[in-house]
Structure formats: C-alpha cells, structure tokens
C-alpha cells in the first residue's frame, strides 16, 4: 500500500484480480482450461480459484483447445461469460478453426453472438523456444468478428480484461509472459478499474516522431525515446495501442499529423505483421502530413529461436529502435 491507499500490483496479479472480481460480481462468469483448477494454472494465475468458486466455474479440461473454445462459444450463446485459458497462446493454433469459423462468424450469420474471452501468455524473450514464444495476433488480423487486446501496463491489463469479459463479442486477450512479474504498479483498490476496448494511450508525449507499438515493446520503445531525448534532445511520442482491433487509428493519425513521422514497433515478425495495417490506414488518412517514410522495427522473419543470442537477435532491441528513430528524425 502507498500513501494514496493504492496496492502494489504486478501485471499477473492485475489479470488475476480482474477475473476474480468479475467472477465475484457476476455469477455468469466462469473459466475453463488446462490445469487451471487443481493446479492453479501454468503461471498460477488462477491459484485458489477452485477453492473460492468451485468446480462448476473453474473447470479443468482435457488437452483439447478446440473443445475448450467450442464450449466457451456454446456457453456464451446461453448467456454465460466464459474465459478460456490457453496454457500458452501458441496453443491457440489447434483452436484456429473454432475461433475463425465459429466464434467470429456466429453473430453475423445467425444474430447470436459469442461473448467470450480467450486469454493466454504470449511473446518471446523467456528462452522458451519456437512453441512457447509466439505473437499470434496477425494470424487473426484479417478475421472480422474478433477483437484483440494486448496490454502493457498492469492498470490496462486489469481494466481491459474486465472490459473484454463484459464485451458481447469474442475477444482474444494476449498477456505478455515477460511482463507477468516484471511490471509492477500501484493500483487503486477501491475504484473499479475499467478500460474501454478500442482506445489507444499516449505512453509518452512528444512532437518530433511518433512511435506506435503495443505489449512488451511499449517499454523498449519508451527506453529508446528517453535515450534519444537525453542524447539528441528530440521528443518522441510513444503510443500504446492497447487494443489491436478495433484499432484506434484516430489517436495515431492525430499524433502523426503533429509529428510528421511514424515508426511502428512490434515483436511479431516483419512480413505480414500488424505494422502493415497501421501503415495502410495512416497512408490513407495522414499521407499529406508525412515528412518521412513510415518505418517499422520488428522481429526477423523466422520462427522464434531458442538459444539466448539467437533470441536476442531475433527480437527488436532498444538499439534497433534508436537507430530507426534517428534515421527518421534525420530524414
């Protein structure tokens, strides 16, 4: 607790509390997934939930991601608010068909929506190899009917998850595993934190260059911005998208029209990554304001490698962002 009566909360606790508080407040919220009940989850997000909410609302399932998502869809049809945990977000792949063809299209086809949340740990940097490190957002970017969230701060992790649980449409919620314990913030305990989907956040304001990013890259981008402020005296605006779909392009465009320069940073590989859609929309809406090409700093176009030097090379690093930013500022 700090003087303002706020509690120090990790990113992981924020996620845990959002689920817990929603389950306490609303009987219809429940969670299902692999090893989440008795074991408390691979990252212990749901530890103790079984004891508090019982086996009806904290459900251990077989290893069957398609069936997990399917059950969530059916329960959502019946007015429940399911939270489906993917032990690692990489394992969303076997549920791809269920998500893209059933969950995403249901409301449009039949008028019956599927208000559910699919959440799990994403992202690289933990030396976990190609199958426990992926950023999967782009796999779903072209699928109408889905919403996608990728919080960076504990506050947003909590507020956006609450909003996602209450949302009438299917939401994919990406938790960056590197932030689980590293991100700590003092969060109010009395007020109910709620962050609406579809609104970006200016993490750091500036007038010389706009960096648009999300997830763990928000912090690397901010570090790069601070370094450039110190060393070059230029002020970079860092925008944390928070929600990937619906995309808050208005905030991005407003910023780019001020700075005239845009750098997009994401952890996913370059080709076919989210930077493409952002670039296309900014081109459409801020072309005349651009004083330099839109650039992107991303992972390289390979799977996520395992050995530390390889993974470090694979990932965008602060230095890469600084170099790219300087190139743009000098343009």
């Amino acid at each position, binding site marked *: 607790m700090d003087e303002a009566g706020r509690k120090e909360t990790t990113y992981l606790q924020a996620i845990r509390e959002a689920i817990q508080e929603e389950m306490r407040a609303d009987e219809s919220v429940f969670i299902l997934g692999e090893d989440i009940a008795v074991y408390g989850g691979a990252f212990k997000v749901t530890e103790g939930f079984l004891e508090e909410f019982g086996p009806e609302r904290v459900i251990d*399932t077989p290893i069957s991601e398609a069936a997990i998502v399917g059950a969530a869809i059916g329960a959502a049809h*019946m007015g429940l608010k399911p939270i489906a945990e993917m032990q690692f977000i990489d394992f969303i792949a076997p549920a791809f*068909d269920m998500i893209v063809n059933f969950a995403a299209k249901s*409301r449009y086809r*039949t008028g*019956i929506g599927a208000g559910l949340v699919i959440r799990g740990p994403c992202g690289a940097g933990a030396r976990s190899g190609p199958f426990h490190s992926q950023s999967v957002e782009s796999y779903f970017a072209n699928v109408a009917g889905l919403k996608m969230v990728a919080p960076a701060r504990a506050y947003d992790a909590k507020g956006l998850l609450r909003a996602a649980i209450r949302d009438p449409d299917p939401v994919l919620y990406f938790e960056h595993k590197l932030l689980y314990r590293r991100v700590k913030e003092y969060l109010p305990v009395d007020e109910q934190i709620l962050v609406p989907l579809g609104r970006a956040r200016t993490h750091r304001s500036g007038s010389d260059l706009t960096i648009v990013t999300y997830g763990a890259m928000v912090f690397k981008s901010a570090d790069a911005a601070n370094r450039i402020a110190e060393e070059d005296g230029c002020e970079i605006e860092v925008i944390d998208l928070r929600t990937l779909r*619906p995309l808050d392009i208005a905030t991005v465009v407003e910023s780019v029209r001020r700075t005239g320069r845009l750098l997009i940073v994401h952890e996913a590989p370059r080709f076919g990554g989210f930077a493409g859609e952002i670039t296309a929309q900014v081109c459409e809406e801020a072309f005349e304001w651009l004083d330099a090409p839109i650039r992107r700093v991303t992972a390289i176009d390979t799977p996520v490698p395992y050995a530390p030097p390889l993974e470090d090379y694979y990932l965008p690093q602060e230095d890469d962002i600084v170099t790219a930013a300087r190139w743009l500022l000098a343009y």
Partner: protein
Amino acid sequence: MYRLLSLTRGVEERLETLFKQGHVVGGLYRSLGQEATAVGCGYALRGDDWLAPSIRDLGALLARGIHPRDVLRQYLARGTSLCEGKDNTNHFTVPSLGLLGPISPLGTQLCVLNGVALSFRNRGERRVCLTFQGEGASRTGASHEGLAMAAALNLPIVVVLQHNRWSFGTRSTSQAAVEDWSDVAGAYGVPAVGVDGNDVLQVYDAAVQAVARARAGDGMTIVVAETYRMLGHAQHDSQKHVPTEELAEWEARDPIQGFERYLIEFGFESQSSVEEIRAEVDALLDAAVDEVLTEPYPQGIEARVGAYAEPEPEAEVPWTRRPIVGYAGNMAAGPSRATRVGESG
C-alpha cells in the same frame, strides 16, 4: 411422427423442384432414406432441450418446430430467412426453439453444444442436448475433442452417430477400419447403443432412453444409427459410383413406407387417414412455396450489418460507396429475426 416423416420428404421434394427451376441458391443436401433417424431423435426431446442437427437432419428441425417456410427461405436466400440471407442451409441457431445450427467444418458443432450442456449443468437445470454426426465427421479432430470433453465433464449429451455408408464420394469402409461403430465409445468411456436407423420407433426408443440417462445426470450416450444415404452428397452428385443393387436393397427398407405399412397393418392409421395427412402436408407446402417465392432477397447494403454487436469504427475512405450503417440498423437485425423465430415456433 408419420406426419413429420412425410413433411420432411415433402419439403425436400419441393426443394428439389425449386432447385431444378433454379430458385435454390447454392447446393441442396438431402436426407432421403435417413428421415427416420432425424425424426425419431427430434421427437425424443423435451421443448426446453437443445438439438444440434447436421446438414441432413431436416426432420429433426421440423420436430423442433421450425416451419417449412423458414427452411425454404434459407435455401432461397431470402432476406426473411432466419440467417437474413447471410448463411445457407440449416446454419441457423434459434434459442427459442433450442436449436444450435452447424457450420460447415465438421465436428465443431459438438464442441459448441458442450457449452450449451455446460450451462445446463452449471445452472442445475435438468435439460439435455442431442446432436447428430456422420461416421465421416467422426474422424475429425474437433469431433474427438468434443466427445472427449463431454465425457470428461459428464455432460448431459446424446450423440447420434449416423452410419449411412457414405462420406461425400467415399465409402466409410475406405475411410475407417472400424467395423462396429459402437466401439467408438470406448475411446471416451461412455456407453453406446446400436439401432436400425430406418426404423423410426427403434430410433425413438433408443433416443428416449439415452435422453433419460443424460437427464438423470449419468452423462453421454452414443447412439449408432445404421442407415443409408440414398442420394448423392448433394444435388449435383450423380452417384454413378454407387451400385444399383445396393440402392435397391436399401430402397426396400425405406423408413417412411416401412412405417406407413406398420401403421396401417396394426390399425393405427388407415389408407385414407394416411392420404389425408399427405394431402394436408401438400397443402401446407404449396402455401409455403408460394409465399416464399414472393419474398425478396436482402438488400446488398445489409451485408455491412452484424459482424459485431456495435459496428467497427472504420476508416473514412473518400470514394467509398458505403454509407455507414449505424447501431440502430444493426439492432433492427436482432429483434426482427427474433420475431420471425417466434412465428415459426
């Protein structure tokens, strides 16, 4: 049940005519020869139970109270259809009638039905779910995961495995080494019961028992219905690779004629009363066809509506032909659809 059986066949015959006249948009999938399984199972449920039909189970839809009119509307892609022209065949979900529609990827529907059953269980409601599955679909990963979860969570579900000898253009024997399809239940630790799928009473009895078992909280039962797909996979499929003797053999076991003989023989119906029913069905279908043919396609602009509960904020594109359709337009979709569901109940 006889009425339902002849209604099923009647609707399909009308659809075939409409197909040949070019009114049907897209493909037409028949259940000729399998009507008894769909009807017998549909009949075994309570009003507040849920049923999830595969594409061939028209009889089950009618048993749930779907009006033939709404079936025609789907195949004719009318704006008045339950899917408002956005999806085809029986891909509609109608909560008021306890109906969960399939989507094309096979096996997925069962996974979703588990969630419906889960909601019954969690709310302590003694309601049951029943679904159908072809032996071909039983080979999909989704089907397996769905069955495995239903068994693991002991959900109130009945799965009717329809062994109709064919999967699209391939014999089930060349798609699976399984001989007795009841053995499939072994992978899930649940009981299975085999029935003659062309005998509506046998199907009905088995379904009633399986439903009762599920309602009692004893979990999933797999009912294996032995039957035969008398027509091709879809209307365009010539079936040229199917030996005529084989078809003749199964034609002799036609579920509707068989049931008709039985009803008359044992005096439940007379030749005339049976004809009465058929006439009644014909009249109803004449009216339905006439009515639906007068109904228009949806307007193109309606394509924009309904992917999300609220329309996506979208980039203003200067030349766009597409006026933004607002929240109101979107809401209009819901209720109007709901109302029609009411009528058709």
